[in-house]
């Protein structure tokens, strides 16, 4: 057996194919390629430096977008427009008026810019689609996670009480705290008193509104209700009613001082949102 193996090994060794010589200019050719490579690598180094800068800026832009997205969600929560959804989709089109597209559109564009910068920086060796999707996911999930915490509420509370004044943050929160849902067929508030099928509710703006309850509905003092109906001879007659979650409802009342500060302090400086401002300031 071993003898056969040895013989076969001999055969293999004898079958070694002859190898031609490399061309005489081979090393010169390789050296020339290396020289070109050197020139390219200088460019590459510069690009890498620029890439790191782009990446840093992209990260900052993503962080800014994330914070803005958090504010967008907070604003939607605070303006009370989502309360309209509790009556089904009949007010769906009205909700669009309260969605802060003036923040959403720039945020979408900034994330697009950030993802492009991140892709150009070549820090991640991923396809452009992966970078774009990841950027939007980071902004979306990060912003949603931040909005789910109490951080916005705490900042708002700090700013409202005037304990601390962070110039930029203070301006931003006051600037954005201006919308409160106002709809001719909708009212929301805390029951102040009730009498013979009528209730008086105090809405987040502090106004007391007399409302005729729908047939068969009973409420108690202190409850938060939302009611849809129509105005007839100055009286709001309810067709449908349900109860608000007390915690959710109370946040609109906490939101009001910020709106009122805004109203008195920054009215002239504020950007114009006529439709919303009218909703906020117009008499009932």
């Amino acid at each position, binding site marked *: 057996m071993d003898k056969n193996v040895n013989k*076969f090994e001999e055969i293999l060794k*004898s079958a*070694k194919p002859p190898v*031609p*010589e490399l061309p005489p200019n081979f*090393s010169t050719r*390789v050296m020339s*390629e290396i020289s070109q490579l050197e020139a390219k690598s200088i460019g590459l180094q510069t690009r890498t430096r620029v890439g790191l800068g782009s990446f840093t800026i992209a990260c900052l832009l993503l962080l800014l977008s994330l914070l803005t997205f958090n504010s967008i969600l907070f604003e939607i929560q605070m303006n009370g427009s989502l309360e309209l959804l509790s009556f089904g989709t009949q007010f769906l089109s009205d909700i669009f008026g309260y969605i802060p597209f003036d923040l959403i559109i720039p945020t979408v564009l900034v994330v697009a810019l950030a993802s492009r910068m991140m892709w150009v920086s070549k820090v991640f060796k991923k396809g452009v689609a992966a970078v774009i999707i990841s950027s939007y996911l980071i902004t979306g999930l990060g912003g949603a996670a931040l909005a789910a915490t109490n951080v916005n509420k705490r900042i708002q509370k700090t700013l409202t009480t005037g304990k601390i004044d962070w110039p930029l943050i203070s301006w931003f929160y006051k600037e954005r705290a201006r919308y409160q849902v106002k709809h001719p067929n909708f009212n929301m508030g805390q029951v102040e008193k009730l009498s013979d099928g009528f209730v008086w509710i105090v809405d987040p703006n502090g106004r007391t509104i007399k409302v005729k309850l729908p047939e068969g509905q009973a409420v108690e003092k202190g409850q938060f209700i939302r009611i849809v109906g129509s105005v007839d001879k100055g009286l709001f007659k309810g067709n449908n009613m349900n109860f608000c979650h007390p915690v959710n409802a109370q946040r609109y009342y906490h939101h009001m001082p910020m709106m009122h500060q805004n109203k008195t302090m920054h009215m002239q400086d504020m950007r114009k949102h006529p439709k919303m401002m009218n909703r906020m300031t117009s008499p009932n």
Partner: protein
Amino acid sequence: MIPTGFSDTELIKSVLAGNQADFKPLMERYQQKVFSYLYRFLYENRDAAEEVTQSVFVKVYKNLGSVALHRPLQPWIFRIAHNEAANHLRTISRKKESKLKDEQWDNIASADENQNMKQEEQTILIQKALDKLKTKYREVIVLHYFEEKSYQEIAKILNTSTNSVGTLLRRGRMKLQNILKQYGITAMMVFTCLFRQSAKLWIKT
């Protein structure tokens, strides 16, 4: 001329210090060895072997900063060559590279035992049988029998253990024998042909 006065380490240090031209003598020391290995491994395709050799040295140059200066350079270069060859084989189909067509193989296989087989034909025969082997077996056979590398050297090149190299060689040999048998050629027959050829050459001289 390759300067003999400088060691690999000295040349590497010089290149890393910015003397790009010193890479040339360093390359010239190993280029034929690398080419030889690649030529035999890449189915005796000269163009492919030359192209891959070139990319090997470009890669060697690019990664010169990461080489361990206290270790011999050759296994490191061969390891790069192995990787480059593997990449090359992945991208180019094996049949395209093969030197012989199947009909030619059949002709050789059916040749009468008494007919004089030329040394070149015998070499091609073995090479063709090697072509049929899986790359992992071919490579160790090429390195061991053609490039005369030891088990330890092959283990370094392939980044594996010497035991694995031994196993691959043993299996490779068996598979090679089976391929030869498939075509009705026994190892003994090949050996006889080779022996006859060698004897003739010896008588002539």
